[in-house]
């Protein structure tokens, strides 16, 4: 009897199906928790969607009329449709970085310790945070895309093209989730982290083709444009969603975005691993 008892305890000591099972349960539990938190806090939703909606309504509608009369500007679609991909990327970027900050909040207030003493791999904490951040980014980007479709009316209703564009949004957002995870693993508090979001947000939009064609820009901004992953994400999705003329080309857009994603996620992973190894520092 005693042996049977001890044996069942021994079995209980070993994770079912090895570490993969623990990883999967951990990611699921964290994803669920973060999504529940997201739904229960209107702050995060309005914080992310507020700015893009302002861009669409005020900047988009105001410029719409003016730009349509500027024959010299080489834009083949209406201006609202033209800026929608850029505003979608802005939304995805803010959502990804805010979603990544969940990790920082949980680190700062100690919630992360609950996960660290649970029988799940440390990696589950990172992947759980990343998956919830991506989910939030996609949901909110889709809302802005829908808004662009309604206001501009130029959306290409090919489901595959829409989905392909959303996949590109995910790849783009993943890169920033990686950066967010790295910052969240390093940052000492929330204040510094939020000033970084500000640094990312608008400058990345201004130094890209989100609001104007690259061809119209002075040389030094052009250089910044080509260094900015936003340019490639906008170029690809503008083509897919609205049939806009490509300035870079899908064959360059996609590899650049993939490399961006892989490098940033790896960077986030490395930094997170270091912070977990030395939780006191």
């Amino acid at each position, binding site marked *: 009897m005693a*042996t049977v008892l*001890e*044996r069942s*305890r*021994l079995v*209980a*000591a*070993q*994770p*079912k199906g090895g*570490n993969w*099972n*623990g990883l999967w*349960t*951990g990611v*699921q*539990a964290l994803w*669920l*928790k973060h999504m*529940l*938190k997201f739904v*229960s*806090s209107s702050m995060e939703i309005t914080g992310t969607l507020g700015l893009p909606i302002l861009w669409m309504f005020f900047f988009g509608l105001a410029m719409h009329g003016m730009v349509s009369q500027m024959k010299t500007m080489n834009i083949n679609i209406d201006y609202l449709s033209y800026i929608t991909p850029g505003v979608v990327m802005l939304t995805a970027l803010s959502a990804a970085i805010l979603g990544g900050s969940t990790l920082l909040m949980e680190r700062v*207030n*100690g*919630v992360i*310790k*609950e*996960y*660290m*003493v*649970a*029988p*799940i791999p440390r990696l589950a904490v990172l992947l759980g945070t990343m998956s919830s951040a991506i989910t939030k980014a996609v949901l909110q980007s889709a809302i802005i895309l829908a808004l662009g479709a309604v206001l501009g009316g130029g959306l290409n209703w090919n489901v595959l093209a829409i989905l392909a564009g959303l996949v590109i949004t995910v790849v783009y957002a993943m890169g920033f989730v990686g950066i967010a995870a790295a910052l969240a693993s390093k940052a000492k508090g929330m204040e510094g982290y939020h000033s970084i979001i500000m640094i990312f947000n608008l400058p990345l939009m201004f130094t890209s083709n989100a609001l104007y064609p690259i061809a119209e820009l002075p040389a030094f901004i052009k250089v910044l444009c080509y260094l900015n992953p936003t340019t490639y994400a906008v170029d690809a999705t503008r083509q897919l969603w609205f049939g806009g003329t490509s300035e870079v080309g899908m064959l360059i857009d996609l590899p650049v975005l993939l490399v961006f994603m892989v490098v940033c996620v790896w960077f986030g992973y490395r930094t997170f691993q270091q912070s977990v190894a030395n*939780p*006191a*520092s």
Partner: protein
Amino acid sequence: MAVLSENKAVGQANALRLSEWAIETSGLARTFGTVQAVKGVNLKVERGSIYALLGPNGAGKTTTINMLTTLIRPTDGWARVAGWDVVKQSDAVRRHIGVTFQETVLDKNLSGRVALDIHGRLYQMPRAESKARIKELVELVELEEAIDRPTKTYSGGMKRRLELVRGLMTRPEILFLDEPTQGLDPQNRERIWLYIQQMRREQGLTILLTTHDMDEAEKLADKVSIIDGGLIVAEGTPATLIGAMGADVVSVQGVAGGPAPAFVTALLATSFVEWAEAHSDENSVSVGLKQQAGRSLKPIVDLAERCGYEVADIAISRPNLNDVFLKYTGRRLRD
């Protein structure tokens, strides 16, 4: 054949596992940069007991708990929790412990039920079992009314109760409580003590708690370790630790600059003094007696006069853990 080898493996694992101690450590140490937070702790905690690590803030209590709960790795020594090594078998350790941290770690927008449910999910608890367990635990700590409200609406005591049962959610063998009643009013504190005693009784738990509260250690613990400067300086049941202090303790309050060391030396030379210690920061001398204080007061005052130690006040007390702490660390334990 496969069954045989499996049995052999189980047998070997059991041999490793069947340690008589719930927690056992040897030379457990942790250094942060140049700071030695824990300098070699040897602990043996009996199964089913409540064990208290008593010490001031910064003594190394939390660092010790963090090592035992696999949050951080020791830089030296080893520790076995529930029979498993905290470094090599950390996953098994995690499966058998529950932890309540010093600071409140609850998400304020989520309800108490969600907090417990997510905790169950992290441990792969089957859904039905998790539901039943939540019901049982919520009744235990009387949170039925509040359990579906966001935790931001909870009082400090309610949050503590919720965290206490979260640590119990997965039926751990060993529960770690880091300062379980810190910041609570006396009423809530006593309530938590009742729950802890009840939990031990009903669930056969081993509980390791840290505290800097003498009453808490004295009321709850079967065994107490006094930890100071990263080392355990005394260990025993509260009764033996206090019993070893002698019959009564007399505090002699002097005036500033009095010759306390000479007074202490003179006291130690008498037949009725068990121990004596000067506390220069308070201008006082504590005297542990072998006999009742009534018969010793006059000799003590006479002795003080002869040594030129001016007496401002005298107080007699039955020794308590505070005096034990004072004796071993030379300091008083303050909040």
